[in-house]
């Protein structure tokens, strides 16, 4: 059997190379199909990895609580002026829910910041010290806002990379210098390490942090003391998140005196939820890729079937000869299946090359991240084999069922 298969493969290559143009055109569908799949999968994988990195940049095991109800569609209702979350909520959560390792809060507003003769509009966040831990910020230089700063209402600030780039000269050290926010002088105590884009596409490094107490009294103002724009909490283990979310909901509903028939007047989100939205997007993308791939592979497969039918007709006499000298049906079947699979496989391999080049070109030209996985190459390889097998079956079967006497007489 080994010699038979080997020789049949050689014969297949010989037959195909006799008609290079025809073989090439036949393979084109498979080449494009496989190439498109490889390129799109690597773009998709690249995007997915980027999103995962962004989701991770939110922090670890983070729970975000925002004021306002969630509507049916999952979109948060307009804050509508109703300030429903306070620092007291945060203290109570921390006290009543042992699962929470940390709680924090913040409020923000876009303000103009001045340093020397430069100014820059940037979201200024008043934060409690726990925020920096929960959101996993680290420092390029200097250090965090502490409880001491918080208690004293110190005028100290942490700057994001984008802010530094816009307010300071390259090489200039911001730590220790003074900036003005709403004409109030602040001492820069730290520069944050860059995080890049958020999952929603905003620049996370375009940010200034100051102590919440300072923000409330001197910069952002407040409707009433202790009102916050968002609460944050974290757990030690990701597995604790669902339980923690339920506990938070219960405590907050109690504190806000909500009746059982009333909706939550706050919205709780976790990293998992944010990741899910992104996953949904990439699933749509995957589905579309799958559709494109299936169509082109179908077209490619039909091309192969067509050319094989032509080949079976052209080689009717040869098939008759083979049967006359003792080929069994399965021999003829195998021969044409191998020819079909050779076509689809060579097409598949060319497609893989094309797809890898396409993915790399995408990275170079469009700057999109791409990841070429061994699995997608393996899958493309096996899939093109399967296409050859499936679409070769009908012509091969037709060849195997030829009547040898008629085949031998065929002109």
């Amino acid at each position, binding site marked *: 059997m080994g010699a038979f298969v080997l020789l049949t493969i050689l014969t297949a290559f010989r037959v195909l190379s*006799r008609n290079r143009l025809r073989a090439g055109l036949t393979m084109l569908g498979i080449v494009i199909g496989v190439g498109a799949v490889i390129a799109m999968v690597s773009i998709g994988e690249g995007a997915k990895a980027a999103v995962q990195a962004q989701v991770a940049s939110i922090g670890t095991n983070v729970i975000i609580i925002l004021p306002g109800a969630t509507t049916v569609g999952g979109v948060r209702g307009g804050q509508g002026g109703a300030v429903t979350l306070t620092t007291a909520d945060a203290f109570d959560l921390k006290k009543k829910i042992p699962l929470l390792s940390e709680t924090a809060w913040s409020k923000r507003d876009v303000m103009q910041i001045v340093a020397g003769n430069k100014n820059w509009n940037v979201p200024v966040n008043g934060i409690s010290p726990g925020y920096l831990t929960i959101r996993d910020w680290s420092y390029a230089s200097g250090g965090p806002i502490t409880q001491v700063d918080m208690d004293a209402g110190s005028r100290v600030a942490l700057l994001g990379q984008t802010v530094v780039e816009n307010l300071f000269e390259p090489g200039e050290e911001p730590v220790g210098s003074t900036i003005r926010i709403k004409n109030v002088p602040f001492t820069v105590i730290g520069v944050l390490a860059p995080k890049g884009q958020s999952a929603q596409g905003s620049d996370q490094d375009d940010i200034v942090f100051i102590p919440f107490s300072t923000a409330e009294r001197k910069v952002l103002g407040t409707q009433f003391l202790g009102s916050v724009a968002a609460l944050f909490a974290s757990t030690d283990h990701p597995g604790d998140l669902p339980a923690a979310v339920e506990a938070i909901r219960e405590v907050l509903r109690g504190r806000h005196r909500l009746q059982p028939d009333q909706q939550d007047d706050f919205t709780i989100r976790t990293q998992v939820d944010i990741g899910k939205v992104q996953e949904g997007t990439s699933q749509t993308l995957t589905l579309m890729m799958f559709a494109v791939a299936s169509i082109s592979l179908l077209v490619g497969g039909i091309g192969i079937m067509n050319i094989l039918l032509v080949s079976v007709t052209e080689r009717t006499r040869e098939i008759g000869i*083979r*049967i*006359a*000298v*003792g080929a069994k049906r399965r*021999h003829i079947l195998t021969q044409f299946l191998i020819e079909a699979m050779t076509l689809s496989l060579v097409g598949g391999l060319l497609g893989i090359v094309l797809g890898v080049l396409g993915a790399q070109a995408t990275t170079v030209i469009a700057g999109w991240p791409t990841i070429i996985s061994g699995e997608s190459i393996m899958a493309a390889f096996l899939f093109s084999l399967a296409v050859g097998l499936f679409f070769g079956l009908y012509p091969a079967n037709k060849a195997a069922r030829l009547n040898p*006497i008629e085949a031998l007489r065929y002109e």
Partner: protein
Amino acid sequence: MGMLIVCQDLWKIYRLGDVEVQALRGVSLEIARGELVAIMGASGSGKSTFMNIIGCLDSPTRGSYWLDGLEVARASQDELAEVRNRKIGFVFQNFNLIPRTSALENAQLPLFYRGLSLREQRARAAAALARVGLAGREHHYPAQLSGGQQQRVAIARALVSEPAILLADEPTGNLDTESSRDIMEILDRLNREDGITIILVTHEAAIAAYASRQLLVKDGQIVSDRATPVPAGSR
């Protein structure tokens, strides 16, 4: 008894719509090992139909046929393929070589389906080509060979599996007189020296003269069956 071929009342009926063509009408025949039989008869008399049945390419509508003790009518498709591969060698009027495939590879073909190693296939095919005087032409393509040479490749292909019987349906029909004589001398030698049973169909008396036995077919029946008094070898 010890007969290579035993046919009893073979019928072959083709139905084309309402029309019935009786290509064979009750042929009974025995052929012993080592015979060289010539079948003659007008065109359309049923010679090829008979050869195809003997060669296990076709099966009779009625009647029975034993080849070397195996009842062919009862055999499966795969068994018939096996019989064709091991016991039968075909030589056709139009040579029927696979185009753009070397003489050696054409001659190898039956062994290819026997699952022999490539080395053995090649060695035996080369030996078969040498037996028909084509040593040195192994790598020629059919298009590079004359008609007579092509037919010799076909004979090598038929020989390579060392068959019990060689069936030649008008083997010289497409050849000039000289090539025809070459081919007949090869067949004659294979019959006398190697004891291969040969059945050949021909229109020409000169070709039929090589045979030790001549059959005349008319309208699907054997109307004459006689041994030739003078063996061709001593013409």
